[in-house]
């Protein structure tokens, strides 16, 4: 729990009283039993690392933040989720989609890049060019934060 609680986005976990308002408000949890934010909080609080970090569990959240508005304790479940994901990623649990976006960001400053046809159309419409201006700065930053390693390792 400490590892999560001591991160800027993970504090909320200490406030959780397991009331279940988040889980019963969560659009995903309503659809699938696999996802249960409340239970995930409980598992993190009790330090079930193996059962959480390498699994799918951290990756069901939509970040729609409905829970943030419903939690009576201001436990910010949806926020804590990012603290958990950061930890999961450090352990190499990164969904392909996320890894791809991270990589793209590191290489082009943007997570999504236009395909050829789009570029052509931009040109024909006289829309601004899509450049990688600022890439150097972005990479410096990611080097400093250590995300570069993560990107390269995945």
């Amino acid at each position, binding site marked *: 729990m400490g590892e999560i609680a001591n*991160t*800027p*986005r993970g504090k909320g976990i200490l406030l959780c009283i397991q009331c279940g308002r988040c889980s019963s408000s969560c*659009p*995903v949890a309503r*659809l*699938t039993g696999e*996802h249960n934010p409340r239970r995930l909080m409980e598992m993190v609080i009790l330090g079930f690392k193996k059962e959480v970090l390498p699994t*799918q569990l951290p*990756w*069901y*959240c*939509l*970040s*729609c*933040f*409905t829970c*943030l*508005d419903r939690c009576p304790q201001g436990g910010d479940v*949806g926020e804590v989720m*990012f*603290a958990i*994901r*950061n930890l999961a*990623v450090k352990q190499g649990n*990164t*969904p392909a*989609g*996320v890894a*791809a*976006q*991270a990589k793209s*960001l590191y290489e082009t*400053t*943007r*997570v*999504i*890049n*236009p*395909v050829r046809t*789009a570029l052509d*159309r*931009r040109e024909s*419409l006289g*829309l*601004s060019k*899509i*450049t990688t*201006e*600022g890439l150097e*700065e*972005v990479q*410096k*930053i*990611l080097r*400093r*934060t*250590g*995300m570069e390693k*993560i990107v390269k390792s995945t």
Partner: protein
Amino acid sequence: MKYAFFLGCLIPARELSYEVSVRKVLPELGVELVDMKGANCCAPFSIQSVDHASWMALAARNLCLAEEMGLDIMTLCNDCYESLLMVNNILKRNPALRDQVNQILSEVGKEYKGKIDVKNLVDVLSGDVGVDKVKGAIKEPISGLRVGTQPGCHLTKPKRIHFEVLRGFNELDALVQATGVESVPYERKEMCCGGPLRDINDDLARQVSREKLIALKNAEVQAVVTVCPFCFLQLDLGQLEVKRHFNEEYNLPVIHFIELLRMGMGMKLDDWEVKAHRIPITELLKDRL
């Protein structure tokens, strides 16, 4: 009214019609948009999931660019909006984090000062321009069209960083009504489109979208009006996927709010723009196209 225009990644790459419409419409309403040279990705939820510090720093870098321009930022995409808005809020209030971020930024000779605000297309139109002025600009009101609006999560949630619960709802609806279109209430309007799970858990993403589509169908709307390009993508393209997986026909055309406004102001969509909608809008808006 002058803004540092934060385009983001998705729109210039995949939803050009959105960009074109904005560039056409806003000057008409007296809003000047200055492109942000060298802006990087806002650092959306995907990146936030990877590393917190990187999110803060990358978003802050964008904020710094706007500070250098001396302009408030206007975003189009909800993801960009929430990311930049959150970081701006946090860094304004939390000196400790601000120092950390500035240390990182010092690498690239930048410093976050907290001098600007982050706004969204809807803020600008309903707040700065004003619904009345928008209404005034409508030359050919679009009558007899029932739509459900999808403001998207990050225009409205969490409460504490947006002014009030249904802000996005009320203001967006007011703007939509201004074009002459009827915005119909429907169940679970607050609910997410499913987009954020795209590429992470496509199956779930689809199921969420389906819930949304069912609710919209129940309200007997003829189309969905979106602000966020992700919502657009998820409900438009996603509809085809839902069709494929659940073989359910919804046939709900999805329209960028700004396109609606553009048409109302008498500026027709080009053919390629019309085609950009995977659920055809021709039937619905034939007299407009």
